[in-house]
């Protein structure tokens, strides 16, 4: 009897305590392998693929864009090529758009219909991004959502919410924090949180280390 070989992942309930559908995926998995629809290796490859993707990729892109204006222009013009320059594999994304924040402009990304997210770059979305409350409120009350994450745009700031209803995946290019002149890319990348790439908050302040 096959077990998923990932004992280091997460907290696990004894399997007989799992919910109805949680149990069924084990049966489905075995049947699919028995019938030759997918293989054990397919599953392992997908687990590894997913584990290799994280917000660090987004942070790397942003930090480079902050220090290198020509890279930033390339990132905005052709994000998939810019990813490839930094060794980030964005090939699984159909189309990819980078939304640049400015002093007068903040972007926020949601998928109200399900939870589309740039997974090939950033990995899995956070639970809150997939929640009904976020999907319901983001388009009608983006400033209220931002306030919950600590961001309070003034009246002079335009807030643009993108509802990613099709195959376009969006990444926010946040505003570079003040007081970071001469910072290294590595240090800049540490300020770029996953949530700032979704747009619900700005990056961390320079003094927050």
């Amino acid at each position, binding site marked *: *009897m096959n077990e*998923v070989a*990932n004992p280091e*992942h*997460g*907290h*696990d*309930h*004894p*399997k*007989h305590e*799992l*919910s*109805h*559908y*949680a*149990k*069924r*995926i*084990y*049966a*489905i*998995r*075995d*049947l*699919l392998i028995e*019938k030759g*629809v*997918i293989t054990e290796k*397919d*599953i*392992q*490859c*997908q*687990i590894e*693929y*997913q584990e290799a993707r994280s917000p660090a990729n987004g942070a790397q892109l942003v930090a480079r864009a902050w220090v290198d204006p020509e890279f930033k222009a390339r990132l905005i013009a052709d994000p998939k090529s810019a990813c490839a320059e930094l060794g980030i594999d964005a090939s699984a994304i159909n189309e990819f758009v980078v939304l640049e924040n400015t002093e007068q402009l903040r972007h926020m990304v*949601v998928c*109200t*219909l*399900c*939870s589309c997210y740039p997974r090939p770059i950033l990995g*899995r979305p*956070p*639970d*809150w991004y*997939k*929640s*009904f*409350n976020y*999907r*319901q*409120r*983001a*388009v*009608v009350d983006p400033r209220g*959502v931002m306030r*919950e*994450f600590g961001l309070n745009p003034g009246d002079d700031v335009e807030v643009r919410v993108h*509802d990613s209803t099709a195959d376009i995946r969006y990444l926010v290019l946040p505003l570079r924090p003040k007081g970071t002149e001469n910072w290294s890319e590595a240090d800049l990348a540490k300020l770029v949180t996953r949530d700032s790439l979704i747009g619900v908050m700005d990056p961390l302040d320079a003094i927050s280390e």
Partner: protein
Amino acid sequence: MTRGHHDIGGVPGAGPIDQSEHSLSDWEILADAVNQALGARGVKRTDEMRRAREEMDSTAYRDMTYYERWIASIEAILIEKKIITKEEIDRKLAEFETKWGET
């Protein structure tokens, strides 16, 4: 005209965003991987999975967790495509439950 239970942008009554996160259980990681593997093999498309979730019972949609909905839609689409039957899943699960109950 009826609004789908998934089509919730702007629906009033939503509360604060719960920012807590949970690390994924084994079954959730498996659901994610099976879904991606089926896509990579061209067995199903993401659009079909979304449609299956839209066709679910609305109460179940709201009550299930994210990955439970994925598993429900994986099952629905595999059955629809006659790759697996519900009875086969039930039988296989019964075998597992016997084994899990023994440990």
